[in-house]
């Protein structure tokens, strides 16, 4: 039989990967829109995106749980579509993680997008590049570092999630028991040896991820500084 901690590790990595990929798809246009818009909706959407940073995860989890309930319109639609409720499933965890990690993906990317000078986009437009062409061939390469930082933070943040998972995912082995929950279990059952291994592993992992983020950030600042100077 496979070590249940390894299964937890696999679930955690799968959750973080799926969440990051989905954020890449929906978070990128959102960050772009927030970076460029003067629309009044931007002023409201920006704090909404940032809410998970300050809210206790249990608050987000509580509302998600209510949303997932088959009594709510969304929950009922999900049940009729898939045959089972969303709470205490891996899909439920993905949805929760997307919401909870959204600011960690959107904010660094938005900052990167804001640093792209309008003149470059105007120049590209007059050279015949349409909106998508401009995004993929000017904005994306110029914001390469911003993408790496945003994706790394979203991934790491999803790995470290606890409160929401507990509220909406429970603690189902092989399904929703992620590392942070497993660690909690080990402490509760006084398996300190295992808890130590897991905690130290998460610590080292987080340190190296942040090391990457800050190194990239520093290099990126230096580059833009040089560009502004020249």
């Amino acid at each position, binding site marked *: 039989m496979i070590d249940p901690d390894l299964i937890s590790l696999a679930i955690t990595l799968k959750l973080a990967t799926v969440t990051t990929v989905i954020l890449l798809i929906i978070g990128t246009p959102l960050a772009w829109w927030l970076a460029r818009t003067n629309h009044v909706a931007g002023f409201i959407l920006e704090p909404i995106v940032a809410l998970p940073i300050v809210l206790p995860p249990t608050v987000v989890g509580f509302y998600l749980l209510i949303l997932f309930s088959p009594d709510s319109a969304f929950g009922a639609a999900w049940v009729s579509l898939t045959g089972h409720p969303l709470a205490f499933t891996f899909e439920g965890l993905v949805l929760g993680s997307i919401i909870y990690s959204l600011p960690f993906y959107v904010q660094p990317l938005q900052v990167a997008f804001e640093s792209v000078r309008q*003149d*470059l986009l105007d120049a590209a*437009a007059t*050279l015949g*590049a*349409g909106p998508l062409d401009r995004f993929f061939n000017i904005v994306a*390469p110029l914001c390469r570092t911003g993408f790496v930082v945003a994706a790394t933070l979203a991934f790491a943040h999803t790995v470290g999630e606890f409160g929401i998972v507990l509220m909406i995912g429970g603690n189902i082995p092989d399904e929703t028991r992620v590392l942070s929950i497993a660690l909690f279990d080990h402490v509760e059952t006084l398996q300190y040896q295992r808890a130590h291994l897991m905690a130290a592993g998460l610590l080292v992992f987080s340190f190296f991820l942040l090391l990457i983020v800050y190194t990239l950030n520093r290099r990126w600042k230096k580059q833009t500084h040089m560009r502004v100077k020249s």
Partner: protein
Amino acid sequence: MEISASVHLTRSSGFILDVDINILPTGITALYGPSGSGKSTLLRLIAGLERGDRGDRIRIVSGNEVWQDGSSFTAPEHRGIGFVFQQQQLFPHLTVQGNLQFAMKRQHVQNNIDTSQIYEWLNLHPLLSKKIDQLSGGEAQRVAMARVLLNGARCILMDEPLGSIDVRSRSRILPYLDRLRRNLKIPMVYVSHSFDEISYLADYLYVLKEGKVHAKGPLMELSSDLELASGQGESAATVIHCTVSKHDPEFGLSELNFEGAKIFVNAENFQINDSVRVRIPARDVSIATTRPENSSILNILRVEVVSLEESPGPSLLIKLCRNNQFLLARITRKSLRMLGLEPGQFVYAQIKSVALLNENVAD
């Protein structure tokens, strides 16, 4: 292709741009005026980089295409224009070559652009493998112009293209621009607040002031307009047309024909019968009522006094004419009194310095 723009636009700051302009089908149409006169906004409207707000009346027409009228709006990427910005418009993640390829891949019109010709005009070969942050300001602007040309633009719009370049590099890049002016058969619009640049390059001139067209006309006419010139102060200068008639290698001078009179200037790089522009600063023109003898000044022209500037200062501008071309002279009020100058009188203009505008590019 002939472009016309009719704009009535109100900014939230209260600034109103209310102009009607037509762009020459070939040659350079210049928009000249102080900052805040609306010239850059007008250019960006023509390009489609700005479109105004609801309530603004903007109509931009190019040949038989309507680019903007009412709610119809053609995006800038579909207008087939080239735009040269003041600075920092090259894509920093690409090399010079990469920037040029970006433009070639997205050519507006599939014309047979002679790439090597453009590289030669703008002297690009030494720059191709460089990174963007290794270029000087002048080099970057040359690459930006090449990028626009390789893109197959049907019309070129330039917004203060020399505005962020130091004065010395500016005089080095002006001949490149002039070379484009003489070789390209497309409309070009040049926005600047420097009359030096305008007098070097423009064929037709719109003077903008506080959002309105203050004056318009061919450069030769406007450069001698007393009212406009008095606003230039010490830098007032006229531009005249001459043809090269003779080279004199012994003295390193060439003889130009100006309305039947001779002007001597260094023009060795030109062919006989080439048409050239000569810029004559008003402060370098003095006046005598009889033909000066034994003077070191070579260029002495018989001209007619047209009008005198009404100015309270110690010096004033005098407008002079020879056939259909005009000159300005700046003299002191005291000299005016001594010589007793009146409109209609014939006098001799002595020209101390003559600058040939279309100097050939030093390759």
